[in-house]
């Protein structure tokens, strides 16, 4: 009953309690992982092309459609890959409504050309804060709203002492005027987090940068 009634995420937590931890704490892991997959797939493709070129230098005497025979097999393989890919990523849906984990902390985010303002809920438009105190492990829900045009609320992490020289993107959500969008995240490390606008919002878009501190309580 439990599994059926709750979201896909619960199903996965039931199967593997660490799923959520991976999602929350090590977002960068996913990107590196994807980069490796992409590089490997590209490399395989290039090898495939070289092989194709080679094959045309060794043409068959009589055409047997040697590869074409396997077309149906190939389709089955890619369909399976895509299904697996979809199913295994489903628990990581970036939508708070998809998850049964309830937030402990709510933060309001207001965007306008070309600045950010964060304030603790539910005070829309209240004085902006720089330092946000949360208990490590709390699940934070960001409510994002815009006063003018569409922006993108992107949060980056950078640890100067780690090998990660470029910082990494943790999560993002679009900020659309007249709508309230939201994103949920669990911070596992105290420190400075950087906000960058991730939707082109006019000539000052690239300057739309801010930061906040998560201090462990």
């Amino acid at each position, binding site marked *: 009953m439990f599994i059926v009634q709750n979201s896909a995420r619960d199903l996965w937590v039931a199967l593997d309690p660490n799923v959520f931890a991976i999602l929350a704490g090590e977002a960068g892991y996913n990107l590196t992982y994807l980069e490796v997959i992409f590089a490997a797939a590209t490399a395989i493709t290039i090898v495939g092309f070289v092989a194709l070129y080679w094959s045309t230098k060794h043409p068959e005497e009589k055409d047997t459609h040697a590869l074409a025979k396997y077309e149906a097999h190939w389709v089955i393989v890619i369909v399976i890959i895509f299904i697996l890919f979809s199913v295994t990523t489903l628990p990581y849906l970036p939508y708070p409504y998809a998850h049964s984990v309830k937030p402990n902390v709510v933060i309001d985010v207001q965007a306008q050309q070309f600045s950010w303002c964060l304030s603790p809920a539910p005070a829309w438009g209240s004085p902006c804060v720089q330092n946000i105190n949360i208990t490590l492990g709390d699940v934070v829900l960001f409510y994002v709203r815009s006063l003018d045009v569409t922006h993108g609320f*992107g949060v980056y992490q950078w640890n100067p002492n780690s090998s990660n020289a470029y910082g990494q993107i943790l999560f993002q959500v679009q900020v659309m005027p007249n709508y309230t969008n939201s994103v949920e995240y669990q911070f596992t490390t105290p420190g400075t987090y950087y906000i960058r606008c991730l939707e082109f919002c006019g000539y000052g878009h690239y300057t739309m940068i801010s930061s906040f501190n998560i201090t462990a309580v």
Partner: protein
Amino acid sequence: MREKEREELLFGYLERGTIKKRQEEREEENSMSQPQMPSTLTAEPAATQALTPYTRKWVRRLIYLSFLNFIIAGTLALFMRTDQGGAPALIGPLGTPQVFGQLLTAHGLGMFVGWQFPFAYGLCSYVFPKYMGRKLYNEKLLPVIFTLFAVGFYLVWLSILFGFGPGWYFLFPLPFHGGPAGTAPWGPAEALVFFGGMIITNISLIVFAFNIFGSAFSTKYDDKYNNAPRMNHSFSAKFAASIGFDAYMPKAVRERVVSYPPAVIAAMVTTLDMIVSAPPFLTLLGDGAWVSLNQPGFLNNLVAKNFVWINYHPIVYFAFFPLIGMYYTLIPIFARKNFASERWVRVPWPLLLITGVGVYSHHLFMDTSQPYVLQLMSQNMSMTIGIASGISVFTIFALIWRSRYEWNLTAKFFAASILGWIVGGFLGVEQGNTSLDIYEHNTYLVVSHFHFNALDGIIPAAFGVLYWILPEIASKQWYSKTLGEIHFWGSSIGGFGLAGTFALLGYIGVPRREYSPISQALPFTAGYQPFLILAFFFAIVVAAAQIPFIWNLIRTLLGPTIKPPVVAPVPEVAVPVPSPLSRQSPDPTLSSEVRESKGTAGASPPVSFRPEGSISGASAGPATTTMTSLGEADKPEYQRIETQSLELDLDSTDDILSKVELERQEGMNKSG
């Protein structure tokens, strides 16, 4: 030797003496290899009267216009790269954040609309006469399409010149709110010109679609698509065939439906996608124009964003689909064999038709207010695009595999293009996944994805097609093959280098569309510098590679006109064009004069430029496809070949080549 020779023939380089010698070698070779040649060998169809000089004139104008816009939009991209490389001072007054917004908008629209639209118009208008043997439904509409497009699109660029710069997908309400009060680089007047221009551009699309649908479905044509005996010619049968859906039908039904050539299916699919998504987009444009006039808008922002992407996703496929149709058409010619199964050739198209529109919500994955059902649909549609592309690529790969593939310039460009399609597809599959897109949306990974697919996918395919069809549509012979090679290698190295660098930028999290990605406020961004410089370098390589192309094209167009295809005075009977007469054509008493003129028409320049081209009627379609509506028993092609090879005058290179080709073909026909 053989490959090289073909290439030389393609460009008409051989000296006469060499030709004679090669011709002999070739005949020998042919006589040896004949028995092994598959009888379904696919070949270029003869130039038909359907491709009238008038159609050719407007097709080539559309294509010239498209490449003109490509060059302009590409130059704008160089300026953007200069800004992002940290050296805006180099471009003086252009190096400001305001102008960056304009460049971004002008580049994106310049490529996807300014370049793609006229190219797709031209290509689709070419494939119907060429591969279906039908005169365009109304070729007099071509100048209308051309003019509407040019007026509309240049109005768009004009508005950008005067400051309009919300990016190519202009998310509402940015077009009306370019900056905090008093600082916006543009006002309602520019916005109005922009929306007006876009509306006119879309009207050109509607006229174009009318012409395409007419060419595909009109009952006025008297050809096998309308009249083949014992076949089902209902509209629904034709519609299904025109989108390749016959592949999914049970055999008994399928056999009663006349299949359309893949190039035509592709043109239909892309046009349908554009046209079903046009009403919401036009509503959006109307709303934009209305708001620019200081009236209250009627679309809310989320609906507006849906309306832009539902049309903008098909836009990015607009020229891509017909170019994939050209892979299916030309690659069998280069590979000298036909597909193992005509069914697999058609299978991807209905999928592409549905997904072309259905994926659009993947542009809204990061909007949590978008209903989840749409996100779920679009994730699955994005995967389906992957499957359809996977099928296409495999089919083509399997065809080339161990064939005697002719690696001419067009074939090389196609190979680069397919590589770009696959690699861009990998990124597309990542981004088409809702859960992963949270790390990739609006970063350089998106830029990388569509530059792989566009700069390294659509563009090389288009160049390949241009190198192939220019002699036919412009009656010019390419000025230089070497320049073409330089163009190919430069564009490929630069293009893949550029899109690859974009991927690296994406994986380190660089946002797209930033005037200056490196910021004091973000200490970690200093590390972006080497990648940004690298991107600038590759952009220069791409740009430099276009110089030989432009030079080659200009010299080609200024060069001598080669034997314009003869439009024979009599050939109502001879030409496989719909006309009331064409049915009576299997007239064995046809005077040899008539046959000769018919033959001459068939030997028009493209044929002689393409050694692999032949004038056999078989197109890339199934073996049963012939360009004529003359029943099974008649073999007008054979007659034509014979008369022609007798009549050719050996004075010009072209003619000799045609002769060689004709004889070869003849031998093949006999052996088959």
